[in-house]
């Protein structure tokens, strides 16, 4: 269990907004220097000892280095060196159908050994995690626009993207599989309904070498559920992160695909509404969880207390470990992600900052060294305090750094608007309007 608030984060609540954001953004970014292997650029999945690398976290890291340069937390040379290490590692990594490779067909295994870079845990070749890695690779390619080694970044970025065989990942179906294992083949999970995968289809369709057919995007949107839910018309997905991940890279303001045109909405507006659903759910608090209110919400994938069943407040409560939680259909065990409210910053600063301040004031222990823990459950108490994850997760930190930056300066969105792959992918998927109408 976790110790009480760290003094280093104690004064946060008193800071004015801009200073508060700066501290928390920098704190989150610190994850990428603290849990990295400088020799190959790999970043640990979590802050826990012996955590392997998660390729998605590397994608976030690659996207955050430019932010650190612009904010003066890292020199351009250091960011360039780290970026190059990373890209070179992936380019040279073992790519074949052997179980100990780093990747296959241009995709990569979800979790890699921090030192060797080989596959661990018999994990899957992950399409969505490779997508997030490639999004970071492309972001780096857009940012480093100089000569010499910066040109090498662009070259490697392009080569890594071109190597991904999106076409293969369909396995002949209308939509992509979620993963593949050398021991087994394509994984058999359902991939139904809206989720964080928009960017997967967009990068896949944008590929100049092995593209997904544009029809795959329509195939995927066919499984969408447009709901009137808790007072909002929303393209439904339960976990909050699914409404945020693609948005970390893509500025969806003003651009629409066929689905959103029919619904007279767009994906940015949709995330705003999804956030409103989460907030309203917390206000209604149907299961009577401690802490839920209009300033404390954010149910998503993350760490949790573990699987156990307890009798509390006149009902049986079931708690879960790491899992993807959602609202309003659940699962919901009273665990909230302390970073989630702030990660919604570009979609409504007042709500995001108001909630974060409330959190820091009432539960300062959720933030240590200016960095948010993965999960917090004030309903399940231990020694008088709510259960708190003792880990920080790279995905959470990366998303937070990027979303704060998109709110503060729009840096990532500006970079990716110029990215030919994204533009081609968005247009291929049927997006138009807004900034997509401008010259690239």
């Amino acid at each position, binding site marked *: 269990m976790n110790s009480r608030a760290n003094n280093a984060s104690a004064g946060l609540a008193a800071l004015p907004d801009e200073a508060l954001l700066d501290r928390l953004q920098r704190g989150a970014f610190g994850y990428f220097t603290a849990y990295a292997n400088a020799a190959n650029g790999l970043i640990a999945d979590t802050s826990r000892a012996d955590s392997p690398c998660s390729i998605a976290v590397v994608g976030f890291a690659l996207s955050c280095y430019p932010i650190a340069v612009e904010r003066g937390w890292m020199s351009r040379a250091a960011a360039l060196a780290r970026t190059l290490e990373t890209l070179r590692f992936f380019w040279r990594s073992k790519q074949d159908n052997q179980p100990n490779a780093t990747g296959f067909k241009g995709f990569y295994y979800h979790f890699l050994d921090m030192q060797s870079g080989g596959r661990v845990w018999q994990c899957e070749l992950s399409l969505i995690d490779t997508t997030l890695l490639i999004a970071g690779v492309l972001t780096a390619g857009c940012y480093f626009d100089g000569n010499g080694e910066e040109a090498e970044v662009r070259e490697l970025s392009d080569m890594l993207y071109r190597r991904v065989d999106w076409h293969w990942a369909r396995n002949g179906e209308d939509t992509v599989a979620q993963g593949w294992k050398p021991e087994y083949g394509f994984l058999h999970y359902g991939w139904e309904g809206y989720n964080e995968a928009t960017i997967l289809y967009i990068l896949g369709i944008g590929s100049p070498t092995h593209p997904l057919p544009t029809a795959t995007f329509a195939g995927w949107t066919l499984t969408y559920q447009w*709901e009137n839910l808790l007072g909002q018309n929303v393209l439904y997905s339960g976990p909050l992160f699914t409404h945020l991940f693609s948005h970390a890279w893509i500025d969806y303001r003003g651009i629409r695909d066929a689905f959103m045109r029919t619904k007279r909405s767009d994906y940015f507006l949709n995330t705003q509404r999804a956030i409103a659903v989460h907030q309203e759910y917390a206000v209604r608090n149907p299961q009577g969880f401690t802490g839920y209110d209009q300033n404390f919400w954010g149910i998503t994938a993350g760490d949790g207390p573990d699987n156990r069943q307890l009798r509390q407040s006149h009902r*049986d409560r079931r708690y879960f470990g790491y899992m993807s939680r959602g609202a309003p259909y659940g699962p919901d065990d009273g665990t909230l992600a302390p970073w989630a409210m702030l990660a919604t910053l570009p979609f409504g600063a007042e709500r995001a900052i108001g909630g974060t301040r409330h959190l820091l004031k009432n539960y300062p222990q959720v933030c240590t060294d200016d960095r948010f823990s993965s999960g917090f459950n004030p309903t399940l108490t231990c020694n008088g305090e709510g259960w708190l994850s003792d880990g920080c997760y790279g995905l959470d930190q990366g998303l937070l750094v990027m979303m704060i930056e998109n709110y503060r300066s729009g840096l990532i969105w500006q970079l990716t608007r110029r990215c030919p792959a994204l533009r081609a992918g968005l247009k291929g998927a049927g997006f138009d309007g807004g900034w997509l109408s401008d010259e690239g």
Partner: protein
Amino acid sequence: MGGGCPMKVNPTSPGSEPFSDNVYRQSVRPQAWQNPQPSGVYDLAVIGAGPAGLAAVELATRHGLRVAIIERDRLGGNSLNAGSIPSKAMIRTGRVDAALRDGADIAVSVPAMLQTNFAAVMARMRRIRTRIAGYQSAQRLSARGVDVYFGDAQFLSPGALAVGGVPISFKKALIASGAQSQRSNITGLEQIGYFTSESIFDITALPKRLAVIGGGPLGCELAQAFCRLGSQVTIVQNDPKFLPHEERDAAELLSLALSKDGVETRLNTTVIAARQGKGEKLIDTVNNEVNSSIAVDEILLSIGRVPNTANLGLEAAGIESDAVDGINVDDYLCTTNTNVYAAGDACKAHKFTNIAETSACIAVRNAFGQRTERESHLLIPWCTYCDPEIAHIGMHVLEAKRQSIPITSFTVMMQDVDRAITDGQDEGFVKLYVRDGSDEILGATIVAARASEMINEMSVIMCAGIGMRRLATILHTYPAQSSAIRMAALAYEATQPSEPW
């Protein structure tokens, strides 16, 4: 009983148990039954006395037709004998048991040692089955002038069939031969033995550990029921979700409900072999590439039902069929023999009692009337009786999308419904699928404690062509769980442009 309902007569002597197993047998398959001697040509010969066959007979006799019905096993078919009725009886006990265990939630203190006597549960189930069987017993059918034959029916020609060597001529025939549990090709399973829905209701002792193979409606219902009655249940489902035909949120809620009850759920898992262990049965499974084994005492196989088409002599009557879809019928339920119709599980993708009964009536009306009723016009509600229940009617979201019909799902969470809160039954939701730019309701999914009842309101609403605007004005009792349906219509109203006052 109200007017028009059949009065029930039990063939019991004074002082004897009215719903004994003996009475049951006398109703559904009397031991000393003498098949009648056919005289002349029957107006209608019905093969199979399940819900479809019995409904056809009921309608045909009401219109003065001369009718023969042929049953090879027990009157009432799967629904009465080994399906809907026995499972619902067991589910009821399971629910009461679960409600008692949750008694503290509603401030009832419950003794720590709650015990369910499984033999008594099954005895209750059999009494219920006997009681319901009495409404359409062999004697009662006979008394109404129906010729009831027990035995295997086989077509001899396009206009005649035989039962036990006795030829029966007909003007029209209805094949309502039903379906049976699909057998499995799992290596070793036949050797070690397993139950299907046809045999599971005959057990008298509760299996300590039960594996349910298949996560369709019946598999899920029985997994939960046996778990609640005290078995340690593992359910293995090939697909990534339970109830593959239902929408994702409903299936996920069911997953959570099952595991909350203590059912071990294994999704995305295929059974590759079964073998005998030391005093136990072992089933070998693979989930992605990970192999594991589950040790149990009994196995229930519930992987679907296949139509009964074998040994009916269909070729002799010019009736086409295939092993998967059953008897080939057109939209009027006519087979490839213009005098022979089919109904129920023998020819329908949705193998439900209500569809069986209704399709049989359509077939009979088409056979003797103007041939105008189309089966595809039916609006079919159905329900899986887990707790919470999962019910559906009309179009699914995906179907609408495939037909390029833009829709919005108006959702009300049961946790926001006052009566669901007072009842402590606030799991689930009501979703009404509405065509964009109109208030037309195209379908609904309901997950709630009594979704099987609530979906019937949707059936009435949709058959009456009531749209969301009108529904919003229709009063419901307060508080009632079904008011969730009106709340969805009120949510629709809230999306409509309103003039400021």
